[in-house]
């Protein structure tokens, strides 16, 4: 029962503009991921929603209640912290039950809910232990259980998996997705890891320099980046860009080749294509291979097109050596165009 609305939120730290004019609506039970590089303002936004930071201007609504001047405890939220913040002086049981005790719930209710969430997170055998006796992964489970036990309207997570090793991260990611879907809470999840974002999110908000540059489903963000920044940020390796010169109405010259493009009268556009949407062919972009990296599943070739850096993900059976000449054909429906002035995507 909790939709979140963020209206015109901005945050300044002295001279530094950490967030500017954030508008975002997160639907009830939606899993929203805030994705961006460090310093983009994603954590600040999360902390403003939590009430750990106060916005300079703007409003935050949770459900039909305006919460932006309420302390964290009155916002109906629960939070999972990057370094877990499991209280070292309390047992796992008392950690999970901490919030329930603050609500002055009767003892048997606390026990029941702690037991249930502990089972959900598979830590029921650890309830008597202290934080110092737990592994990183176990602490992470305690932190999530502690938040879930509150049965909050909204659960906020600040890079909760970033301190785990790769394998554990994969395991927790899947588990977290299942548990949260079942709990039917609205979730906001901050991460700099795009794979994590893709795998977890109903929608991703890509943030850059204190602004949300695109908020859309993972597939949409990947396929149709709204800005050049998103195109260059999402995807590993990210999109390739080559400057395109106008050749006449709707025709553009890209590295000596003619392509159909937007009917724009801009002096130049940027032609963009994902590395995996390229195939070697008779006709296409002429490239010179520079570095060849066999990655098992496929071959990553870093090459030069028209003096620009250009990557192609090719079939691993292909034999390519540095300084080889390649002709790479882009899949026509995967080509995207960006205006170098506005950095916005230009529709065909």
């Amino acid at each position, binding site marked *: 029962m909790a939709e979140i609305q963020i209206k015109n939120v901005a945050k300044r730290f002295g001279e530094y503009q950490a967030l500017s004019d954030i508008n975002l609506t997160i639907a009830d039970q939606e899993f929203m991921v805030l994705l961006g590089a460090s310093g983009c303002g994603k954590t600040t936004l999360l902390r403003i929603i939590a*009430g*750990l930071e106060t916005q300079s201007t703007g409003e935050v609504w949770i459900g039909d209640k305006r919460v932006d001047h309420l302390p964290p*405890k009155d916002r109906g*939220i629960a*939070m999972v*912290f990057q370094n877990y*913040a499991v*209280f070292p*002086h309390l047992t796992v049981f008392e950690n999970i039950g901490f919030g329930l005790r603050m609500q002055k719930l009767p003892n048997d209710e606390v026990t029941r809910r702690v037991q249930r969430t502990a089972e959900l997170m598979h830590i029921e055998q650890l309830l008597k232990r202290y934080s110092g006796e737990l592994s990183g992964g176990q602490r992470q489970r305690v932190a999530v259980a502690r938040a879930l036990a509150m049965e909050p309207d909204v659960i*906020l997570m600040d890079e909760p998996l970033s301190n785990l090793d790769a394998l554990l991260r994969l395991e927790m990611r899947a588990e977290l997705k299942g548990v949260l879907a079942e709990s039917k809470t609205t979730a906001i999840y901050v991460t700099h890891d795009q794979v994590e974002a893709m795998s977890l999110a109903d929608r991703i908000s890509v943030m850059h320099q204190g602004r949300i540059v695109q908020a859309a489903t993972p597939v949409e963000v990947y396929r149709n980046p709204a800005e050049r920044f998103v195109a260059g940020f999402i995807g590993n390796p990210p999109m390739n860009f080559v400057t395109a010169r106008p050749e006449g109405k709707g025709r553009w010259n890209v590295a000596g080749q003619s392509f159909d493009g937007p009917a724009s009268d801009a002096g130049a556009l940027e032609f963009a294509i994902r590395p995996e949407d390229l195939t070697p062919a008779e006709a296409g972009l002429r490239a010179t291979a520079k570095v060849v990296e066999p990655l098992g599943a496929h071959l990553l070739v870093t090459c030069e097109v028209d003096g620009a850096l250009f990557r192609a993900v090719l079939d691993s059976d292909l034999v390519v050596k540095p300084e080889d000449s390649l002709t790479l054909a882009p899949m026509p429906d995967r080509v995207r165009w960006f205006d170098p002035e506005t950095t916005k995507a230009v529709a065909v």
Partner: protein
Amino acid sequence: MTAVTTDTAGDTRRAGRYVYLASVTLLCAWVLVPLYFLLINTLSSPEAVNAFPKSFIPEFDLGSLTFFANFAGMLSALKNSILVAGVTMILSITISAPAGYALSRFDFPGKELFRLLILLTRAFPLPLLALPLAVMFIRTGLDDTVLGLALVHTTLAIPFAVLITFSLFSGIPVELEEAAWTLGCTRLTAFTKVVLPLILPGITASAIFAFVISWNEVFAAAVLTIENRTLTAFLLQNLDTSPLHLKFAGGFILVVPALIFIFAVRKYLFAMWGIANR
């Protein structure tokens, strides 16, 4: 050939090891032997203390200590010392801990100025201020009282207490507090339920530190008390006139809390200074 060289290398290392152990032992003795001498004198009869040559083993006679206990004004001086140190301990922690917390948790305009004030206090020959305070206290009726002296000693202890509590609070991750807020705590309950239990041993250590600062202080105590002398002031005043065994017994009583103090706070001593340095 190789066997010989490794052997000499081993010898050098063993010799180095002996020099090292010998130096450690010597330095321990350097600290402990003078204390042992004081112990001998304290546990000897007044006659033995003034006799010559001295025995190097205590005779376990409580004569000197009894004399000390019966010396006019001595017990009340001891009582005053404990009272002043106790009040100093409570005052300096209750006043300083909030400031230490503010320094560790907030960035606010004027923070640097405040830190400067604290550092200035630490770098200042504070006992000198006892002189004008004596005048001020006479005007306010605080002269020659336990509270008056405790106030001065608190000023002495504040820079240490602020810096120590600052470093203690800095050792508690702010996320723990934030987690408590999101789990239904106010600032105050988060402090009492999360920060306080974690910080209590450290606070105790810095309280003991404040106690000892006051317990040991001589100059201000001598300047500010006349009738209600503390032990240090009393001993100082009577240095010229009092017999040796009285001095030694008094010195011994002064030293005992120090031994307990260092033992009680030994775990915190280095951590406290580690951050307080910066």
